[in-house]
């Protein structure tokens, strides 16, 4: 239960009922060490736990972006002012986003490091912010960043954040952070408080701590929301129901519900994950990226995926739901990992198409 620990706030317990036990310094140190190990694990994988299997099976991940060489970037810098454009050379899905981005010029300086936010974009579910970093420290090729967001003054309004930071010159970096709202959140406009608290060198672990604060009022791109009436596509007690499609000038965003009621398959396979193969009536295919997911652990999951920009002449969208049945590696924390390169068994079940007329 999500609220159990909240409920605990209201419970009046007599603290004096318990006597403090003796704890040696050695014991404390041991607990600190053990927890640090567990905590850093949970931190890194926090969002992955539920969706790792899905993400990895789709071959998505920031890893594919890490191979960018900075020489091409450095070359581009004087010409290209758009960070989104810069990163779109390697990440197809954000290509074209720069046209709809709002120019910003927000500068914050802290601890010898200047960060300039020069671009932002909001599509009602995702907020992208592009920035340059100039620092007196060497932060390596791909620095790590620690950030927090408030959305309309509220913390914890996000599902997940993603960062790509690349070296673009000596002590100069370009960064693109994507903040994804919780599944239930879809906003026409929002106020984002973007706070950066540290930058660090992945290799040497050298860290620049500071406080870089930006506040951006973002208005979502013009969107059209289509509630989908088409019935669920079903096969072998597996089902996909498309609930909603949001059309934005840069993408389309699909919300669907997945049901898995086939106990036999669940027993047989470690991971069963769904996906949609999407094409339009002109034959164009679209790639996607996970934007969020939530579920009840009892066979229902709701997912949101963002697809590339829709072809302007497309009339219908054809969704082919598939279920991937996979064997997984299970690590010591019980987290299931699907390694796309390993030769573990996999089967695909294809469901019948769901065809949706694109509203004009």
């Amino acid at each position, binding site marked *: 239960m999500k609220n159990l620990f909240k409920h605990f706030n209201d419970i009046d317990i007599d603290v004096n009922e318990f006597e403090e036990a003796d704890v040696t310094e050695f014991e404390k140190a041991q607990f600190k060490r053990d927890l640090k190990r567990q905590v850093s694990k949970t931190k890194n994988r926090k969002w992955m736990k539920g969706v790792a299997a899905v993400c990895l099976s789709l071959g998505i991940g920031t890893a594919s972006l890490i191979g960018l060489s900075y020489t091409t970037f450095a070359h581009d810098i004087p010409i290209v002012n758009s960070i989104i454009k810069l990163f779109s050379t390697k990440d197809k899905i954000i290509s074209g986003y720069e046209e709809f981005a709002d120019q910003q010029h927000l500068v914050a300086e802290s601890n010898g490091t200047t960060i300039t936010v020069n671009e932002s974009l909001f599509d009602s579910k995702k907020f992208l912010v592009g920035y340059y970093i100039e620092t007196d420290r060497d932060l390596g090729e791909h620095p790590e960043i620690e950030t927090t967001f408030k959305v309309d003054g509220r913390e914890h309004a996000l599902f997940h954040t993603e960062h790509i930071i690349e070296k673009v010159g000596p002590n100069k970096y370009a960064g693109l952070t994507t903040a994804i709202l919780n599944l239930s959140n879809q906003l026409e406009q929002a106020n984002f408080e973007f706070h950066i608290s540290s930058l660090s060198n992945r290799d040497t672990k050298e860290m620049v701590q500071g406080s870089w604060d930006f506040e951006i009022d973002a208005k979502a791109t013009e969107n059209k929301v289509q509630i989908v009436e088409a019935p669920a596509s079903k096969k072998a007690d597996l089902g996909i129901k498309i609930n909603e499609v949001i059309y934005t000038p840069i993408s389309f965003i699909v919300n669907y519900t997945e049901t898995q009621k086939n106990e036999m398959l669940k027993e047989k396979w470690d991971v069963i994950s769904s996906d949609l193969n999407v094409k339009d009536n002109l034959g164009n295919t679209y790639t996607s990226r996970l934007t969020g997911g*939530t*579920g009840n652990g009892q066979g229902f999951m709701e997912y949101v995926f963002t697809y590339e920009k829709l072809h302007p002449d497309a009339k219908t969208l054809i969704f082919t739901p598939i279920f991937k049945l996979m064997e997984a590696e299970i690590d010591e924390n019980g987290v299931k990992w699907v390694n796309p390169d390993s030769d573990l068994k996999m089967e695909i079940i294809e469901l019948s198409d769901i065809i949706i007329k694109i509203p004009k």
Partner: protein
Amino acid sequence: MKIDEQNFIKYLQAGKEHALDYVIDHYLPLIKGVVLKILGPLDINESPKECCNDILLSIWKNAKKFHGDAADFKKWVCVIAKYKAIDYYRMEMKKKESPSLNIELTLAESIMYENSFLEEQEEIQVIISSLKPVDQKIFIMRYLLDFDTEEIARQLEMTKSAIDNRLYHGRKKLKKDLGGMPIEKSV
């Protein structure tokens, strides 16, 4: 960043590991006290340590759900410790007992026994969350924290028979619902 009594909650909620160190330094004796009081009689070696670790991890993971000051925090920690320790206690008992010994049970015990069939504590929580808020609170206090009905009645300013009554109706509802129901749980 200097962590002290004034700011450790803030830093803990912000996910700063130093704040967890602070919690270990200042609250571990109490946590261990709670755990030993409940698990002590079982005379098992490793469990209390595992349980303490589990409690600290829960505090870390759920820090954002806490609200209040340092005094409230102490209580909150105590409640979590008691909840986890009872959970461990039941697990240990389950290992020891053979089901055939459980034939004659009082009503209250039988629901606890039913619970143990559910294997996952989490599942019970999901089911409890389908109850009305006040009943949720009563069930958490009674079955997850092992408070007696008098204590619950005192805290909620209700009569003991009202509590018993609500527990009875709640149990009936739960029995009916045990087939499983959709309750949202974040990924």
